[in-house]
């Protein structure tokens, strides 16, 4: 598959090209081919260059306030040349209230001040290579809850709520004792530390009892991990590791998932969990 080709263009007279240059280099570092037009390009020049260079997407940058005039003009000029299918995105100093107008005029997405280059690279890959976009996880495999004592916690989950215990196991390598409680197609896992070095102990000391992690079941764990790594997503496990019942698992850093520790798990073929 050929690399994504992007034209980064500065329409109008604006000379602020720090953002355009930083994005050009960041997209190159993400494996894309980038053509930068330089300053002071008219919409006609930009449309012509996009077609001649056979790009997959056009990125426009303006910090001078001329975006409402110039961005839609670029789309018009592309359409005039039967190239209206080339998506156009934009960025710069663009007030939020102008964004609906620009989207209505056919700009696919506006990245305003403070957007990350990471976010943009992922957006472009998903937009232009949808076949490579992540498939939704199949289900929530389980929800992990950290508790001081499984036997104390079970009283609530079984007697008060009415769940049934499937099994209780000790996973020596993780320093944890686990109680499995089935609920529909998913499970609750109660996690009790086996000793003071257990990561669950650390969690309990810092935050007390509560939801510890959520596990998503996926079918392509190894591929996903390598793509997440490419996107710069921080991982606790960069390679799949052995989980319960022959499953493969890996954790994503909670900072990436807005404070939630996310586990990705892939079941061994033919097993239930």
């Amino acid at each position: 598959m050929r690399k994504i080709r992007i034209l980064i263009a500065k329409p109008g007279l604006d000379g602020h090209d720090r953002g355009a240059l930083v994005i050009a280099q960041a997209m190159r570092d993400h494996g894309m081919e980038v053509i930068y037009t330089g300053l002071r390009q008219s919409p006609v020049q930009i449309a012509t260059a996009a077609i001649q260079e056979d790009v997959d997407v056009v990125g426009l940058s303006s910090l001078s306030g001329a975006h409402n005039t110039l961005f839609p003009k670029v789309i018009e000029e592309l359409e005039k040349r039967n190239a209206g299918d080339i998506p156009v995105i934009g960025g710069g100093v663009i007030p939020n209230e102008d964004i609906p107008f620009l989207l209505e005029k056919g700009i696919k997405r506006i990245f305003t001040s403070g957007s990350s280059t990471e976010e943009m690279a992922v957006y472009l890959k998903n937009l232009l290579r949808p076949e490579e976009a992540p498939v939704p996880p199949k289900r929530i495999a389980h929800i992990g809850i950290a508790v001081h004592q499984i036997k104390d916690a079970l009283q609530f989950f079984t007697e008060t709520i009415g769940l049934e215990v499937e099994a209780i196991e000790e996973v020596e390598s993780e320093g944890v004792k686990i109680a499995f409680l089935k609920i529909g197609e998913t499970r609750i896992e109660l996690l009790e530390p086996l000793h003071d070095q257990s990561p669950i102990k650390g969690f309990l000391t810092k935050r007390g009892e509560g939801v510890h992690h959520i596990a998503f079941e996926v079918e392509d764990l190894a591929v996903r991990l390598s793509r997440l790594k490419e996107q710069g997503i921080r991982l606790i496990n960069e390679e799949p590791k052995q989980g319960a019942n022959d499953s493969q698992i890996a954790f994503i850093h909670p900072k990436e998932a807005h404070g939630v520790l996310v586990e990705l798990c892939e079941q061994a073929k033919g097993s239930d969990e």
Partner: protein
Amino acid sequence: MPEKHESEKTKWIKDVEKTLKRFPERKETFHTSSEITVDYLYGTEDANYNLGYPGQYPYLRGIQPTMYRSRLWTMRQYAGFGSASETNKRFRYLLEQGQTGLSVAFDLPTQIGYDSDDVMSEGEVGKVGVAIDTLADMENLLDQIPLDKVSTSMTINAPAAILLCMYIAVGEKQGVSSEKLTGTIQNDILKEYIARGTYIFPPKPSMRLITDIFAYCQEHLPKFNTISISGYHIREAGSNAVQEAAFTIANGMAYVDAAIASGLDVDTFAPRLAFFFNAHNNFFEEIAKFRAARRIWAKIMKEHYEAKEPKSWKLRFHTQTGGSTLTAQQPDNNIVRVTMQALAAVLGGTQSLHTNSRDEALSLPTEESARIALRTQQIIAHESGVADTVDPLGGSYYVEALTDELEAKVMDYLERIKEFGGAVQAIEEGYMQREIHHNAYETQKRIESEEEIIVGLNQFKLEEEVNPDLLKVDEALEKAQINNLHKVRKKRNQEAVDQKLEALRRVAIDEEANLIPYILDAVKAYASIGEICNVLRDEFGEYTGF
């Protein structure tokens, strides 16, 4: 003495290292924007404390002996949007609010020498500044503003000569002779090639226009600052503090070289050179930067160019707080950033200051935001007490150590630029641009990895951002401006315009002639900026990037 100090410090560091085992530091290393490593503590052995005195060479501690005890810095807020008469209202408002100097922002067509009805101007008229096509607009812009009392700074570069001539012409109409005019034109084309992008002509004729202005002003506008050699935009384009100071000083040297080569004596033009720096986030590094720049420039002017007049040695500068440090997220936080940056500029000894408005990452400032920005300066000046003694941080172990280290790093850059044959050649070979871009990209990566924390942007975020009220430039303005231009064209004496433009064309090819009197004639005949620049474009060619 130093030996004893060193052993005491060594002993002390051993103690500290014990503590560090129990309380490790927040980061592996601490450093400034310019990759200067910051130590735990600074002491007598870390810097040269032979500081000299304010008002005395090499002016480390300030260019005047009494600094702000005699006169506060000029509070000069950059403003301009839409039409000349709208901007005139904002100017008169700011003067009523206690601002002490004007600073004009022009729109991009004006800055790049296009008339408002040029196809290239579409969508840009009146957006980032006021639209000026002919002398008629300048008359509206300065209506009822007495040019013998107010000093005016104009952010104009490639067509600086034209705007300066318009200013002279308005002065004449007010009965103010050109000798009495005070103010500054930016007129710094080299940083346009490097960082800001509003160039028109290639370097050689551009440098000629600049030295023509030097020569003309020396005779006719002795109180006017003929150039504002700007590091501001170099910093905004992504450089660090050392690069900002180094490239600015290198550009300054290129102008001095060009003026001397055109036959001017250094002491006739050097006193009118002014500088313009950025006040960025790293508080002490910024203060050190201003102080180091002053000392370096003084040494260069005295020792390298052998200027005799103390006035030629003094680096006078304007400061603006760093626009690119402002965030679109939680915009009120920007007021705090601006306060810190403004304080650094004052502690660094600035001659004038612009404080940015909180909403500049979103649009042009509203009147309320512009007022808060001005009030910030007034609070620093009148309430904080920092203006009550000269160079209050002079002798601070840390500040002096940083000042020395910055100076050494700037000198290294100047040496490298000299190897290229000077700033013009270094720019033509893309050297400064590459250095700046590299630093900009590394900064972006540090922000995205959260190695560098920006409050409200990558940490301490709000779930729901509030949309503040923003200033909107009326879209109908472009049409109205074009109509006005057409009216002026109809009313003026076309024969006179053609004649003045032809005269200008003839001197453009005569490198010995000074262009300014011919530009002044054309301006007075109401020739437009686009018409004048097109004559020069025909003869000089256009710059299209290196």
